[in-house]
């Protein structure tokens, strides 16, 4: 059973993946996300931290046994159990498929759309419209896949659901207002089923779906 320290800043959706996985596996994770244990922007730039984690990025995990791993999917994988990772080679490959799908197909358009509404980045109309189309495409692919399935891989929660749910959190909370998300009933059903699992709720708290699409924060 993995045990160790997760370095991150508070409310980091990438860190949620490992924390939810640990709720299922029973892995003991101590979160260092605020001073004095960890100060994002300072601690992760110290020579000690960079020696362990040369990218200087979070989340980063240090096992009680000294094992070091960075990249959020790898940390989530490490603190998971076999059920979450996929027990057959088919399900294990499909877990990796959906983890990579989240990073390559969901995060780019979701960040493009949401960041300006949070004041993280400049608003760009054309990029935002393009991102909305990409998000629609992603949601229809998920909706199609979930037509006949309760979860993404096999018939129980896996790391595929954990990583894809976490990658969708921002858009579900910030911009997917009822009229926009209405065509994707299977995705809504799957997403709300997942976030209402006690293991997700223990980490995410109450996930309130967006009522009104946030506009960019000029």
């Amino acid at each position: 059973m993995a045990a160790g320290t997760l370095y991150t800043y508070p409310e980091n959706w990438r860190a949620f993946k490992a924390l939810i996985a640990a709720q299922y596996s029973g892995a003991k994770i101590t979160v260092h996300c605020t001073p004095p244990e960890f100060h994002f922007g300072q601690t992760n730039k110290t020579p000690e931290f960079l020696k362990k984690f040369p990218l200087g990025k979070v989340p980063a995990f240090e096992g009680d046994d000294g094992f070091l791993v960075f990249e959020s999917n790898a940390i989530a994988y490490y603190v998971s159990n076999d059920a979450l990772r996929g027990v057959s080679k088919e399900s294990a490959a499909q877990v990796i498929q959906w983890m990579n799908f989240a990073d390559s197909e969901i995060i780019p358009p979701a960040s493009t759309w949401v960041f300006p509404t949070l004041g993280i980045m400049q608003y760009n109309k054309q990029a935002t419209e393009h991102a909305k189309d990409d998000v629609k495409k992603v949601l229809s692919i998920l909706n199609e896949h979930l037509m006949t399935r309760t979860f993404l891989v096999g018939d129980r929660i896996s790391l595929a659901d954990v990583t894809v749910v976490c990658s969708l959190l921002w858009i579900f909370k910030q911009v997917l207002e009822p009229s926009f998300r209405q065509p994707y009933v299977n995705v809504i059903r799957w997403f709300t089923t997942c976030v209402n699992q006690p293991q997700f709720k223990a980490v995410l708290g109450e996930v309130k779906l967006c009522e009104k699409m946030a506009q960019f924060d000029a």
Partner: protein
Amino acid sequence: METTCLGQEKIWFDKWRFDDAERQFYEQQNG
């Protein structure tokens, strides 16, 4: 042939801009 196909790959060329912006945002948030 191969480079034409390669040209159709969807790459997140601007990823570094997003990474930098997100890092700065959370560094500010965390004072």
